[in-house]
């Protein structure tokens, strides 16, 4: 048989013999004849490994990954050291299933326990789960948790939350029946209403830093939540956490985040890593897997997936979430990456991003016609207004070897109707690159 099927003709014959069958076709006798494909699938015949690699390499070559990257918007080209790749690539981690059999899964379980601890520290909240799909799904789960906890389905979402995440929240609201209310930005920061018109919200969602790169005053968000008796969900950036106060410290009930920056490549958007942490009050509503420490029969320290009664396979339609397969390998990767960075390393990365951002902002805003879009302080990403359309600029700068940023949708730019661009600078960018970018930018806007 085929390439990845081990059986020889002799094997198949012997096996069919035990079943009293004379052909593999007979294995499918239970499938109504009329349904069975008379001719094979209309797909090309299988290729040998070298030809597959060649075909895939050709496809990969048609992506412009040679550009110096100034795009962010929730996906960042942080450094990934060789150790992270080597360790996360250990085949025992890669080829394991969800750790249902704890005795042979201590590797993944302990790595997840360490991951949970690290996320909990970053978020400043005592419990973190073992991952969700991505930032958007973490935000959805955060909202679901908060709505369930408060019993109030009205959700105030800051426009500083990533527009894609808001889109996902809206999609999910069709099923959950949540009532989403978007709260606009003023000068780059969320203008939380003093009072609620209409339904009292059960949850407020803010981003820190927000989509425009600005540092929200989460004190104001907390106060607004308190006024409504709502929970506060904060979408945080774990890399920026190297220098920023934690959501927990600001009083968030739930912290969600996109963990891609913790060792996972840009990967055209996935697989990424949804982060989720909350206060202890909500642990029984926590979505997804949770690993806990325990002991084995001989009293030795051991780890196991716990509070499983929350989960779909046990609680079914009453589960706190439907998530099953999540992003474990990325969580293990993040634990390795954070282990590599450590206390000082994460702070240095965040600082290096902030330095590059400051410098790049200065460079770009010294160009005629390029202005800061909003005045609020930014950390690792900033928005500028442009004299040309953002997508045109991105296209022009690609020809100069740069991925210039992410054009801002009109809704993000605000009333002005200007063209805008979101520019991110990671620790991988050098002064030389930024200077060259500035020069090319200058030419491209004129």
């Amino acid at each position, binding site marked *: 048989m085929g390439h990845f099927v081990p059986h020889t003709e002799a094997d198949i014959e012997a096996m069919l013999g035990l079943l009293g069958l004379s052909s593999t076709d007979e294995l499918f006798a239970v499938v109504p004849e009329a349904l069975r494909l008379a001719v094979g699938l209309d797909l090309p015949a299988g290729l040998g490994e070298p030809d597959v690699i060649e075909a895939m390499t050709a496809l990969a070559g048609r992506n412009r990954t040679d550009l110096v990257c100034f795009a962010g918007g929730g996906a960042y080209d942080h450094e990934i050291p060789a150790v992270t790749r080597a360790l996360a690539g250990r085949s025992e981690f890669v080829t394991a299933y969800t750790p249902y059999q704890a005795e042979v899964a201590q590797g993944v379980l302990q790595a997840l326990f360490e991951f949970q601890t690290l996320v909990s520290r970053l978020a400043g909240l005592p419990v973190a789960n073992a991952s969700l799909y*991505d930032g958007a799904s973490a935000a959805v789960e955060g909202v679901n948790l908060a709505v369930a906890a408060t019993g109030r389905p009205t959700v105030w979402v800051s426009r500083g939350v990533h527009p894609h995440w808001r889109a996902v929240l809206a999609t999910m609201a069709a099923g959950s029946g949540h009532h989403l209310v978007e709260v606009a930005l003023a000068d780059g920061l969320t203008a939380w209403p003093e009072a609620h018109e209409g339904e009292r919200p059960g949850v407020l969602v803010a981003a820190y830093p927000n989509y425009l790169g600005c540092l929200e005053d989460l004190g104001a968000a907390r106060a607004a939540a308190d006024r409504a008796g709502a929970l506060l969900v904060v979408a945080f950036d774990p890399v920026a956490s190297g220098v920023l106060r934690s959501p927990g410290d600001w009083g968030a009930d739930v912290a969600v985040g996109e963990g891609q920056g913790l060792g996972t490549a840009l990967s055209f958007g996935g697989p990424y890593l949804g982060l989720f942490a909350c206060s202890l009050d909500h642990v029984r509503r926590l979505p997804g897997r949770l690993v806990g420490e325990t002991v084995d029969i001989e009293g030795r320290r051991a780890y196991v997936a716990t509070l499983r009664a929350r989960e779909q396979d046990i609680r079914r339609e009453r589960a706190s979430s*439907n998530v099953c397969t999540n992003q474990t390998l990325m969580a293990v990767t993040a634990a390795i990456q954070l282990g590599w960075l450590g206390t000082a390393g994460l702070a240095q990365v965040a600082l290096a991003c902030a330095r590059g951002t400051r410098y790049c902002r200065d460079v770009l805003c010294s160009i005629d016609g390029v202005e800061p879009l909003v005045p609020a302080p930014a950390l690792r990403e900033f928005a500028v207004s442009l004299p040309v359309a953002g997508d045109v600029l991105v296209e022009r700068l690609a020809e100069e070897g740069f991925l210039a940023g992410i054009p801002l949708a009109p809704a993000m730019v605000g009333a002005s109707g200007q063209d805008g661009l979101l520019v991110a600078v990671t620790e991988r960018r050098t002064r030389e690159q930024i200077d060259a970018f500035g020069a090319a930018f200058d030419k491209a806007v004129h």
Partner: protein
Amino acid sequence: MGRSAEPTLFELSRPGRRAWSLRRSGLAEWTVEELVPQEHRRVPPVDLAEVSERDLVAHFTRLSQRQYGVDTGAYPLGSCTMKYNPKLCDEVATLPGLTAAHPGAPGALTQGWLELMVELEASLTEITGMAAVSFQPAAGAAGELTGLLIMRAWHASRGDGRQRVLIPDSAHGTNPASVVLGGYQVVTVPSDQRGCVDTAALRRLLDEDVAGIMLTNPNTLGLFEEDIVEIASAVHEVGGLLYYDGANLNAILGVVRPGDMGFDIVQLNLHKTFATPHGGGGPGAGPVAVTGRLAPFLPGPRPVRRSGPPAGAAGRPGQTPPFGWEMPEQSIGRVHSWHGNAIVLARAYAYILANGCDGLRRVAEAAVLNANWLRHRLRGIFEIPYDRPNMHEMVLSAAGLRQRRGVGAGDVAKRLLEEGFHAPTVHFPLVVRDALMIEPTETESLQTLEALACALQRIAEEAETDAGPARMAPRTTPVGRVDEARAARRLIPTWDARASS
């Protein structure tokens, strides 16, 4: 070698130790005080762990050695399709032209990815007999929910406010959970004697309030729902849609297609059927495929081929690139931060290229052959509640053994770990007491199956005379049987909780 406990990263940590190093940026060394307003500054920095590169490597290497994976040995975990995934797909997953692509880059700069998705969509529609695919859902459960939201949007577009979705009692737990998130009520359809949907009961439950039915076919007992055509027309008759949970697609590749069975919506678990190793619980990918009439409701934006320039012509200035993004007219919207788990898609596409039409059918044949062979081989050793031709998996019951000797499915599973195999899925599906659900997959050889059967036989025979070994198992694993109750009772979800508990 690898048997003793491994300390946590936090125990290995010493202040000031480090592994990291950064690029020389040449930038001015502004201080954190200069860059971060005081009210936003974290002081002191968040305490993580501080270890050397050497200790980091030893730590995670040793952890990996405390972990069983498919590369370690057979993993007959029912419903999970723990097949061996070709290393060639691992290499594809690291191609810099794929991994370094920013998801926010315009289509003109990511033509390779768009082409890959469009081609993969073509393959998957052929394999499933559907018309169009969305790649956004990140796993099976996300695909289910997406499918249900499509179902809802479709009914809504017709002004139809149906409330209920039917699910067989043998269904996977994600199905009912997703139904609820889709805003529907779950109605359970019982299985009949055969282990299949009780069609008479189904008919009784069908009415104009039924938005649809979710089925897995073959179902979680590994049995093909032979009445599927009848079921489909009955559901369609009342205006409902058929949702296909594709977690078990491995069994029918190239043999029969969900579309031909009458399904309207299909979610695929690429991480089961199409060569993404499980990563200890993800990442996966759960693309949703639908028939033509539902295509306008798919999540978006979607990658599309534009009529015009041929593939490979990308990036030539002035030309419109051949692939682009498009929002379906009545799209339910986004269901992912970006475009789905793209790298998983690349693996799947490479796997399909490698197998081709012939290879995919061989996958199904061998998967089904292996499971049926095991069923025959294990007769008389364990009870087989549904001892009839199965597809890719089969379910044993340890109920008798439990009754006679107090050795349940969980004990058999733990005992099997000692024999160098991963355990089957236990206590699922719920319709079988003390279920041991075995999915050998197509990549295990006859020798391996025979060794597995021998191990199960040894365990069964041993348990008849001595329940001890099974109930005390496992003893040769990195830790012995783990106290699950204590973990829940005395919750320690982080190292810090431990320190403070």
